[in-house]
């Protein structure tokens, strides 16, 4: 809304900036939106199955490694809304009127907000590794305790300080607690200032309150064991999302099923994309 008018002329530039690609042929449009630390190439293993039957739109989040870091406006991307603006601007620039949205982790949050803002644009939301809030609360189990966050942030701040001085830091991965390891691995692939900034944005956001405003039917994809997203979160989402929600289970471990188990994920996607409406 607010952002769209600013980008009126620049929508072409936005398409180029975020490496927007449209592949495949078909009547219906599927938007694949990646999570942290990767970029659209994370969908490489899933893409061949989809591009035969659908027009697939791929793009990189502005915080992805493959986007020119100079485009990351620290004043603009303070909340998730700016990312939603980007997504909607892309869809408008491409002339998409209705689509299926597949979002992983961070993008799932963006998708939820986008569906609240423009419900007519989304036929269905497919949310992989999604969580409305990562931090544990009184009776809500988000998966992360405050200490875990603090350790991740400490590592990322050390990362950032070293980066500012021109040194690539050596503290990664192994030095954060196991609970957050898989999740944070991708964080360290991003440029340290951007990733620190974005992590603060994400870890402080709480979408629980607005879940009820979603009218779009959703599919929540849950892996057998995701260290970052406990299984209770999927149930929470199903209970609170405003539209019809189904949970799909993938019998594989991990937070990144599109990388570690693409075949299983494709089956889930096919079901989700094929159902009527």
């Amino acid at each position, binding site marked *: 809304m607010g952002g769209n008018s600013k980008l009126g002329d620049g929508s072409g530039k936005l398409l180029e900036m975020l*490496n927007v*690609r449209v592949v495949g042929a078909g009547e219906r449009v599927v938007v694949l939106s990646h999570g942290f*630390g*990767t*970029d659209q*190439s994370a969908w*490489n*293993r899933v893409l061949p199955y989809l591009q035969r039957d659908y027009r697939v739109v791929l793009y990189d989040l502005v915080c992805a*490694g*493959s986007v*020119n*870091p100079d485009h990351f406006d620290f004043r603009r991307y303070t909340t998730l809304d700016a990312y939603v603006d980007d997504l909607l601007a892309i869809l408008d620039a491409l002339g998409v009127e209705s689509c299926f949205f597949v979002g992983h982790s961070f993008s799932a949050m963006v998708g939820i907000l986008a569906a609240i803002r423009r419900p007519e644009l989304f036929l269905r939301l497919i949310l992989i590794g999604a969580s409305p809030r990562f931090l544990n609360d009184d009776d809500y189990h988000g998966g992360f305790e405050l200490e875990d966050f603090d350790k991740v942030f400490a590592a990322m701040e050390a*990362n950032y300080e*070293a980066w500012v001085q*021109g*040194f*690539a*830091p*050596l503290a*990664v*991965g*192994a030095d954060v607690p*196991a609970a957050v*390891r*898989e999740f944070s*691995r*991708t964080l*360290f*692939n*991003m*440029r340290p200032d951007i990733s620190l900034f974005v992590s603060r944005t994400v870890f402080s956001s709480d979408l629980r309150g607005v879940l009820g405003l979603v009218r779009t039917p959703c599919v929540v994809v849950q892996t057998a064991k995701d*260290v970052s997203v406990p299984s209770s979160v999927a149930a929470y989402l199903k209970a609170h999302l405003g539209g019809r929600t189904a949970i799909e289970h993938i019998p594989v*471990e*991990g937070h*990144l099923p599109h*990388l*570690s188990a693409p075949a299983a994920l494709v089956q889930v996607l096919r079901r989700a994309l094929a159902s009527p409406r």
Partner: protein
Amino acid sequence: MAADSVAGAHLHDLPEPILTQIFSLVEDVRSRNAMALACRRWRCLERSTRAALALRGHVRSPFLLPTCFAAVEHLDLSLLSPWGHHPFLLHYQQQQQYNYLVDQVALVAARLAQAFPGVSSLAVYARDPSVVAALAPLWPGLRAARLVRWHQRPPNLPLGADLAPLLAACPSLASLDLSQFYCWTEDIPPALQEHPVVAASLARLDLLCPASNEGFRSSELADIAAACPNLTHLLAPCVFNPRCIEFVGDDALVALATSCPRLSLLHLVDPATLSPARGDSDAKEDAAITGLGLEGFFARLPQLEDLALDLCHNVKDSAPALEALSYKCPKIKSLKLGQFQGVCKGTWLHLDGISVCGRLESLCIKNSADLTDSSLATIARGCRRLSRLEIHRCDKVTETGIKKLSSMLRSTLVDVSISGCQLLDATRSLRALEPIRDRIERLHIDCIWASPDLDQLPQTPERTAADDSDADDVYDEIPGESRNKKCKYAESNHDDIESSCFWFRTWARLRSLSLWIPAGEVLTPLGDAGLLSCPQLEDICIKVEGDCRTCPRPRQREFGLSFLALYPRLAKMKLDCGEAVGYALTAPTGHMDLSLWERFYLQGIDGLSLYELDYSPPQDKEVNQRSLSLPATGLIQMCSSLRKLFIHGTTHEHFMRFFLGMPLLRDVQLREDYYPAPENDMSTEMRVDSCSRFEEALNSRRIPD
């Protein structure tokens, strides 16, 4: 002797033609650059006499093409940045500007022709045929061409279309090198057959590309041979598997030899041997090649000097054929045999098998299960000129055999490679090379530490009936390390003071070392194994291979690169972890992911004063990703003496920017020279724009020297 009158004479005072002649003889690039900095006249001279040039600029700045190098004959365009891109920057998204692009291509091509009029040898990255189509006509007198492509072959390309423009435009082409060019085997024969004039003038044809795992069938081989009767050098992968249709057997070999009698270098290998990973070589079936057939084959190739037949199927009883080789091909100097059995029995007094080839200078025997110590001794007796020996997976060879061979060949042997032999771990290999420790210049060993079962080996080697007329002592092995070892060598009265103390063995002339090490192992036992002191070592190549997902966790936190600081002159390192496979992003809990493995491997690299580093990151096979991670970047960045850095993989732009902090860094490139190289539009990290931004930043820094 200089009298006062000539006290002021200077190189600079020589007349121009002589100076030009002198300059044109200098080949080393750094020397030439230094010469060019001396004064303007020298710079002109240097520029006008430089004969070989590799362009490393960015594809976006064709106006920066240097025009002063008018004498260049060997032009290498395959390293233009970003590596692997179309030299004319055909941007797929700019389809609508097609006409403009055609003009730009023509412009750049014309500029190249103008800048380098005398090119006779060209190397270019030919992603699709349009590149060659634009460049080849500029130099119709081209004598040698090398095409490079690690990307996938463009779909829907007619057979032979990659080569057709080149063959059509350059009728006097004599050498075609496709060893880094991925194409199908079916592409080659039609291209050659359609251009018979060029094919007839071809003398060198190199088709050994590790990317393709197919080989030429017998009919294809025959077609190539028939089209190019004047070949003197041919390297090609062939289908030797007798289970395949049209396998290459005795008849095919004879047909080849009949068509190309002038062959002096012939390498026919099974495509499986070209893959970078070490396969397992369980005894397989027999090849369709017999000793008798080989004899007929050799009879038709009297000019043969360098032969390689590297098979994955057994060739039995090859001794008579090898004896025939030495009679029929008297010039034979270099031989490589894979999976040949019965190469040299060495049981009697006389020389048999390979050892009859007295002129051999380079010998490589792979997967020969019956090669024994006495075979080696016989070979040493027969091939007195041997300077290079390579043994791979010959499981019966022991330390004694190698030791005897090296002491007998002490005056000539300078290059030894021992790999994959069960009875020869690192320590034993090094001990076995004791007789040539002060002479050896190039060495490869596998870093296999401590094999417990080797101590039970019978101590007495098979004694040959041959008398030790060369007066070298048979070595008495005392179990356990002995501190006082004395050897008598054949020719010299070399007083080996150092050998009396095991720990200070100096490898006085060793210049180049190559190591193979399984994933998860550490490097530090290398000192204990015996390679503590290598004062001349300049160049090291370390290959790590294995599955990081299943191998046990390393015993130490560091791989041990800091150990290499012991070698004072070490300047160039190649660290190839490309065959170490692991998880990039999807490591299950409890497993190390590749970023941690890279930290393990690269820790300590800052202590080495390296000039050049070639690094291949470990790969995640599931997603075909070979990418530099954050800890790897940080560790490489700390290596402050580095001038040249080549990464054989991809990485993020902001990681690359860390390298800008390295003061001496001049040349950085991401070279994805493995198949399949990531396609541009699917590549994860480095794209054209990122590349250009990085290079601009790199080029704009001040360089101290």
